[in-house]
């Protein structure tokens, strides 16, 4: 009888708790009183800001500053992700924010998140600036053999569709000295001349960065980066008198908090 009463109290209490704190009392015992604390708190919110690449690039006389950063906040399976990547030409002070994406991220698999949200792309500097927006669906996660993969399908506000893929792989030379290989590519499904995009494979980028971890959080690096534009995009750039290939020395820092 007593147990019965307690159980009724518990059920009522559990519902109240769920509404009040969102903590839920899912696994609590039959004797637990509704106003008790939970025995453990396994549903906490965590967050992290990571500057994966914050770097200086030099290709002959061209000098660029580049950033590639991400931040997330959330619980184990549901997270809000912000990602941004862009570069600025240090001689002309012009550049572009290649993407500034805000996405909801859900872990649907052991190693994979599905992400969806909105992204912005803009240019900045002396020449007339432009911007466009896109809806994104993507996958981010850890592929077999330890490849970190981030891939997105984007549809812009003009209806142009593109697909991008980035993958990174770490070779541990020692516990603190790590060589990172990086590859990226972008495929467009239509020509968007205004943005220098030809349909088909636009480019392939490869990079090797050697970083030293003074701590887990802070690791400066040096490396090389190579980009090749291809197909229609290559033609487009040739017409505009832009390079279709670049090889750069890079130096930067990877850090998180």
């Amino acid at each position, binding site marked *: 009888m007593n147990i019965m009463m307690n159980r009724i109290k518990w059920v009522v209490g559990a519902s109240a708790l769920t509404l009040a704190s969102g903590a839920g009392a*899912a*696994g609590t*015992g039959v*004797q*637990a009183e509704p106003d008790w604390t939970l025995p*453990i708190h396994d549903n906490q919110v965590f967050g992290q800001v990571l500057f994966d690449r914050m770097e200086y690039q030099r290709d002959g006389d061209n000098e660029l500053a580049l950033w590639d950063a991400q931040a997330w906040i959330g619980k184990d399976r549901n997270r809000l992700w912000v990602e941004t990547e862009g570069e600025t030409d240090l001689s002309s002070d012009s550049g572009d924010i290649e993407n500034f994406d805000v996405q909801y991220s859900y872990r649907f698999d*052991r*190693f994979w998140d599905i992400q969806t949200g909105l992204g912005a792309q803009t240019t900045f500097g002396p020449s007339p600036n432009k911007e466009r927006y896109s809806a994104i669906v993507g996958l981010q996660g850890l592929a077999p053999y*330890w490849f970190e993969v981030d891939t997105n399908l984007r549809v812009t506000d003009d209806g142009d569709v593109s697909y991008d893929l980035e993958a990174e792989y770490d070779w541990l030379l020692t516990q603190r000295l790590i060589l990172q290989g990086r590859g990226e590519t972008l495929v467009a499904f239509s020509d968007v001349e205004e943005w220098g995009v030809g349909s088909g494979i636009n480019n392939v980028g490869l990079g090797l960065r050697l970083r030293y971890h003074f701590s887990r959080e802070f690791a400066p690096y040096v490396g090389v980066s190579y980009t090749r534009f291809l197909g229609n995009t290559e033609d487009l750039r040739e017409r505009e008198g832009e390079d279709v290939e670049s090889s750069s020395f890079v130096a930067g820092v990877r850090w998180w908090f």
Partner: protein
Amino acid sequence: MGLLAGFDSLLPAYARGQLDNTNAFHTVRNGADIYDLTVARTPLKIGGRVSEQPITINGTLPAPLVRLKQGREAILRVTNTLPEATSIHWHGLILPFQMDGVPGVSFPGIMPGETFEYRFPVEQHGTYWYHSHTGLQEQLGHYGPIIIDPAEPESVAYDREYVVVLSDWTFDSPEDVFRKLKVAEGYYNYNQRTVGDFFKDVETMGWDAAWNKAGMWGKMRMSPRDILDVTGSEYTYLMNGSPSASNWTGLFRPGEKIRLRFINASAMTFFDVRIPGLPMTVISADGQPVQPVETDEFRIGVAETYDVIVQPTGTAHTVFAQSQDRSGYVRGTLATRKGMEAPVPPMYPRTERGMAAMGMGAMSMGAMGKDGDMNMDSGMDMGGKMEMMSGSNDKAHGQMMMNGADSGMNKMSSDKATMNEVPTAGRPISHGPDNHGPGAAMVASSPQSRLDDPGVGFETANHRVLTYSQLQSIEGWPDKRPAEREVELHLTGNMERYMWSFDGKKFSEVDGPVKFYHGERLRLILVNDSMMDHPIHLHGMWMELETGAGEYRPRKHTISVKPGERVSALITADAPGDWAFHCHLLYHMDAGMFRVVSVV
């Protein structure tokens, strides 16, 4: 003792060098042992460095010894002077669930400024311990030893006894440690596989095998080097509150027999314990007497206890406890006078997990245990299966099986007569339709009982290392019924997000408690679907570990389950109420590897 008093007033009495450290200061009234315990935050110096964060009881770290007597009542009055709630759980004690001290399960917790009186009859005897069950307080020193003296004298002879409390200390806040585990996989692991390790494999096993081995682990996105989540890179290991440099010393007179009561009060560290040059006779495990078994080393999981008898032959002996991943150690000394030291051995080389950890069972010794014998054919067979994976450790393991040189193997053959089959051996395994979902990064496809395997890092050991299969109770236990029902739980985790759970579901995700029915006899089956060892602790009821020893199975409050292993235990559900059931790795528990067992 008077001479030594004041040596370090911040350590409890038992942690000071003296002849015997098991005196406890309390009152006895009306057949009850009465203790007053005050929980407080006390700045302490640990290894020469001051920390503001220790949580002490009566001013010391570890907490003072609570010494009770079987058959009497215990009255334990706990006063909380912290600005936050606290609690004390009496680990391993059989008592009414309201006295078990788990906030949210047995009671609301002890609020700031409040005194809670625990009161219960003491039914058992042996070595136990107590600790906070609130938040991450246990990491900060909120733990201490319990000795319960038997009502009838024991048949064990010794001249002197010491409690040896092993623990791990961090100068960072436990919340910070937990966050780093959550956001950065492998944050504390400075023994990850490097390119150089790959080429070493190529040298020892050839290109193809090395490539296949790397591929196998890579495909699973698992690391064979994940042995402990928080390592010596973060922790200072303590013996009775003292780091190695302070050298905790237990004094003895030549010729004496000493009973050492080892308690692993760590938050996250499995220790491998030995006293170089001295054999140890294990006489009890988790407070429960076992048939004496002599060994050279034992692995003690978090929350486990072992009592051993040693008889020093020299004037100083090092008590050496290295962390399971060999990232650090703590030593103390048994000596005939204060200030003496014995050589401190080097730690064993670092190691990595073999294929058995994946739960494939290919090199499992348990697979052989099935036949109860060492069979050359099955050994060859396994050698064949291992071909692809015969890394340095695996190879050693293989050789060990082939020539049967290992003491564990000999022991097994010689005990054949008393060995019964482990009841779950050979059963197919089921993981549910979704393989436990994203909460489980892997599942064991063919988990084996490996109770005769001392565990990772002992593959090449050429000395005796204690295994669970060597633990046998003295008379068996009162409930002779076979199991009427089985409850199977899988230990699951996903290192990448530091998610830990049972059956892929965290405490906050499950639908109600695990139900035991009052009076029933049940078999609890634990399957480890993860790459870590988990010390699984059931409150309030004993787990009789099915080792194959028939009715002489040992009973435990905490069972360490190795990666890819399946173990089973018989339980008599004789304790009505709600009981915590969890992994005793503190951050695994806090990440969700926790259930309530309701005995209804």
